[in-house]
């Protein structure tokens, strides 16, 4: 076919590790046509990144042992170094995931973009001394010209005031700007194909929406094909024409985005779609996929998903699985035919055992009732400011900048409810949590727990400390690597003086509650998966029967299927133990599923607080609206609404008046002058001059 730009045929990429051979990619075949946007989807460990890196010849230290890759009719797998360099300079570019690591910290962004342009424009031999800017070998005017063009590119990818930023070093830019600079480097060679490896995963929702919009525009204007690698089906639905679903190094299913989302044929695709929170009603259990991803070093036969598949037959486990093409260009499925064609509605999913109630109990008394009991936690005008003047000269000059991490927050948490705290990174969510747990002390204002004002950890009595449990975000640092699971969970019990047998019994009970087996009591953290570590952290947090658990992004580091199981565990615990949760997250789809009430934070202030369905269905604050619009929708046809313009101002110099005004579509002159009050609106409140409810609102 003439229009085929990239074709991969039966690709096998392997890694030699200490633990044995890792078969990262096992027989992947796929194509990308000119001007097409293709999504490559899979959970971590599915081999999607290795596939992408193999395409540009960056699979090292892995090795392509079988199969072929053709890019613009050049066989990448057999290409010489020179051919490969030309391909990278002309035909294909790559955008990598983490914007904090993909730019070279010691060169300014202009240099890095200019270099990419130069590589593209001058196919001749690249001379080291010229690239090092050594005067006799390198022409200053030529570099200056490339820098000028770098500024144009920066403008194209949406970096504001590019002429000022061209000399900036990567660390001086925000995450979103860095990622845009990364895109500029990729686009500098005017490629036919851009491979973007999780380009928006590390970014905030609103930034993600802006960047995806750029990709779509660029694709429409230039006809550049895009291979988008992601774990997020929402992102796929947003911009992809076609989807390739990978699992354990193999392609499970391919097809047009619409067909995949609405009529998935492969059991894995179905299961993956079903455990997304946005597909499930609030307050009902999330379906899950039992079992775990096979060890990448294990020998295997048959379909890799068979051990977790409810339709699996003996043939699936032992025999070669055929790839079946669907009629009418509707893609292909790698599955034993009988499985997917027989029925469209699968039997009841394994994730919803009958023993437990189908719907997790939301607290019976909805918050907002007039006769509410006294809350567990009350924040009254709480602020946390940090002084930034650290050096003697700054102090001498009285140049006393303060960073307002949390500013004038009023909030309460009732017994048994889940209060979700949402906002983009750096908005002060975690600081607010630390004020409640006692890791930080408020600059002004009062924190009350059970009606008693409390200070930091050192000032709190044992009863207050045991009343609040904490689960942190990062599975790698939340457990002491040198303690066993048993000791970790037993530590709070020990600190209140429980003896050994009593501790052992309690630890056993807790392990059972969070769904871990007794054998895991003697494991060390490095022997556990991310999901298991979070379960241990939860067990530790509830060990002393707290009435509130602070969950700081507890599922953000986990894959969708693992995330669903953990959210179910949290729901069960809440129902059984009458826990209140402060659930901190940037992921609104998760929040919508778990929250009873939602508090939205921006630049240290609460923008809107209200019951979850109310906030999600009828947001009153313009910032909440913008956040909701930025969520990638799973409906293939819908497109994101207008996303927020500009970047978040620094919390050191917030705008006058309303902090949101310089990005607010509704802002007027009044907003710059007066800081709006919190306005009560029915069961919720919002901090905006124009906060109104829809006409339909009572």
């Amino acid at each position, binding site marked *: 076919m003439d229009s085929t730009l990239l074709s991969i045929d039966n690709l096998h990429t392997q890694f030699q590790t*200490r633990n044995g051979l890792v078969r990262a990619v096992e027989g992947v075949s796929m194509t990308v046509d000119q001007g097409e946007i293709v999504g490559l989807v899979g959970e971590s460990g599915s081999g*999607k990144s290795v596939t992408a890196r193999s395409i540009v010849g960056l699979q090292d230290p892995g090795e392509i042992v079988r199969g072929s890759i053709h890019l613009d009719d050049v066989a990448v797998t057999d290409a010489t170094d020179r051919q490969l360099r030309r391909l990278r300079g002309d035909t294909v570019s790559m955008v990598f995931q983490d914007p904090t690591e993909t730019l070279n910290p010691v060169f300014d962004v202009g240099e890095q973009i200019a270099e990419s342009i130069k590589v593209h424009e001058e196919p001749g031999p690249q001379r080291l001394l010229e690239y090092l800017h050594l005067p006799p070998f390198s022409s200053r005017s030529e570099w200056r010209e490339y820098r000028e063009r770098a500024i144009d590119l920066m403008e194209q990818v949406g970096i504001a005031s590019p002429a000022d930023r061209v000399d900036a070093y990567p660390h001086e830019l925000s995450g979103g700007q860095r990622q845009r600079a990364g895109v500029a480097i990729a686009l500098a060679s005017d490629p036919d194909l851009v491979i973007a490896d999780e380009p928006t995963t590390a970014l905030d929702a609103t930034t993600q929406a802006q960047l995806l919009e750029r990709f779509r525009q660029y694709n429409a204007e230039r006809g550049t094909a895009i291979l988008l690698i992601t774990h997020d089906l929402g992102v796929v639905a947003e911009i992809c024409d076609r989807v390739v679903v990978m699992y354990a190094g193999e392609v499970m299913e391919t097809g047009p985005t619409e067909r995949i989302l609405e009529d998935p044929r492969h059991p894995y695709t179905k299961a993956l779609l079903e455990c997304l929170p946005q597909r499930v009603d609030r307050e009902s259990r999330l379906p899950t996929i039992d079992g775990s991803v096979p060890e990448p070093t294990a020998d295997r036969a048959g379909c890799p998903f068979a051990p977790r598949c409810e339709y699996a037959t003996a043939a699936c486990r032992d025999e070669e699985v055929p790839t079946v093409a669907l009629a009418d260009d509707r893609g292909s499925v790698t599955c034993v035919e009988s499985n997917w064609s027989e029925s469209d509605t699968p039997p009841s999913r394994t994730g919803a055992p009958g023993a437990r109630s189908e719907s997790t109990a939301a607290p019976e008394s909805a918050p907002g009732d007039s006769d509410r009991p006294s809350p567990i936690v009350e924040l009254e005008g709480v602020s946390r400011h940090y002084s930034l003047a650290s050096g003697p000269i700054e102090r001498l000059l009285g140049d006393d900048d303060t960073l307002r991490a949390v500013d004038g927050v009023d909030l309460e948490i009732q017994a048994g409810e889940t209060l979700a705290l949402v906002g983009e990174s750096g908005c002060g969510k975690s600081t607010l949590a630390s004020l409640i*747990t006692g890791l930080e002390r408020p600059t002004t204002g009062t924190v009350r727990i059970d009606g008693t004002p409390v200070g930091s950890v050192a000032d709190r009595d044992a009863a207050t400390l045991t009343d609040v449990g904490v689960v942190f975000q990062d599975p790698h640092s*939340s457990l*002491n690597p040198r303690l066993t699971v048993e000791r970790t969970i037993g*530590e709070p019990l020990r600190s209140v003086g429980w003896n050994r047998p009593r501790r052992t019994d309690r630890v056993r009970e807790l392990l059972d509650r969070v769904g871990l087996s007794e054998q895991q009591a003697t494991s060390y953290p490095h022997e556990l998966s991310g999901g298991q570590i979070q379960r241990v952290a939860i067990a530790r947090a509830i060990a002393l029967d707290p009435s509130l658990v602070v969950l700081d992004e507890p599922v953000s580091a986990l894959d969708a299927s693992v995330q669903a199981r953990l959210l179910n565990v949290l729901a069960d615990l809440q129902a059984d133990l009458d826990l209140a949760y402060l659930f901190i997250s940037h992921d609104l789809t998760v929040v919508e599923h778990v929250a009873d009430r939602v508090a939205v934070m921006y630049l240290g202030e609460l923008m809107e607080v209200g019951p979850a369905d109310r906030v999600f269905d009828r947001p009153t604050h313009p910032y909440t609206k913008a956040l909701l619009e930025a969520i990638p929708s799973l409906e293939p046809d819908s497109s994101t609404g207008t996303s927020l313009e500009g970047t978040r101002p620094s919390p050191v110099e917030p705008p006058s008046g309303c902090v949101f005004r310089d990005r607010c579509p509704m802002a007027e002159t009044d907003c710059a002058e007066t800081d709006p009050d919190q306005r009560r609106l029915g069961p919720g409140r919002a901090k905006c001059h124009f906060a109104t409810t829809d006409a339909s609102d009572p």
Partner: protein
Amino acid sequence: MIGRFEALVAGLRRRYRAVRTSRATAAFFANPLNVIGLVIVATLTIAAVFGPVIAPYDPTSQDLVNRLQPPTLAHPMGTDQLGRDVFSRLLYGARLSLGIAVAVTVIRLVLGTAIGLLAGYAGGLIDELLMRLVDVQLAFPGLVLALVVAGILGPSLRNVMLALAVVGWASYARLVRSSVLSTKEREFVQAARLMGVSRHRIAIRHLLPNTIGPIIVLATMNLGTVILGTAGLSFIGLGAQPPTPEWGTMLSTGRHHLRGAWWLANAPGAAIMLTVLGFNLLGDGLRDVLDPNHDTPLEKPT
């Protein structure tokens, strides 16, 4: 009592299982260099412990008839200018060198770790003062200061030990402090604080164990450095005095016979080098296993 004992046994068994099955141990033995290091250090230790039993001659007995004999079966490394057996002297020297190295390293380690832990954990003014003290110690090139201290105290092995101990603790203090500071910020320590675990227990249970790996690595490498330093000071004439069979002193005497009796200077030279090499190899291997910052986890690409 019996319950406690059983618990202890169970704990030890668990530890042993963790060590035996751990990837770390396997990784350590997978690298031949690490094994060579271990073998050298083990051999040296055996030589130091059983030296007097193995040694064919008394290290100080002179035999002026057989002066400056080249290596033969009777004298595998020849004899020196006074007819003493070089091999026997080397064996006795191993005991001296290793003993001094261990003693000096232990003093440095205990002193440095205590100061570092205190500075990192207490913070504030105490931290500031202790760290300035560390800075002052590190402002002197170690051997120069040791030389001056040993020289003023008077030439003897004991004084060399003292001098070397005084000038080497600061790097431990720095290492422990920075490790404590970074561990203190990790989430599991915060979690422990929030659960009301006492400060004392946090220091013992959470901070120290996560610091110990890098310290062991440093100490292992340090054993080699101390051996070099002792030999260097003795070479200059500040340490062991003749007829003590000390490697540096032997090398120093041997230099007068460089042309005629090459083995005199080169036997102790090679002994020093092999020993230090052994500790360096072992330290490298331990670093891979114990130091989480340098621990290269298996890359699991997605």
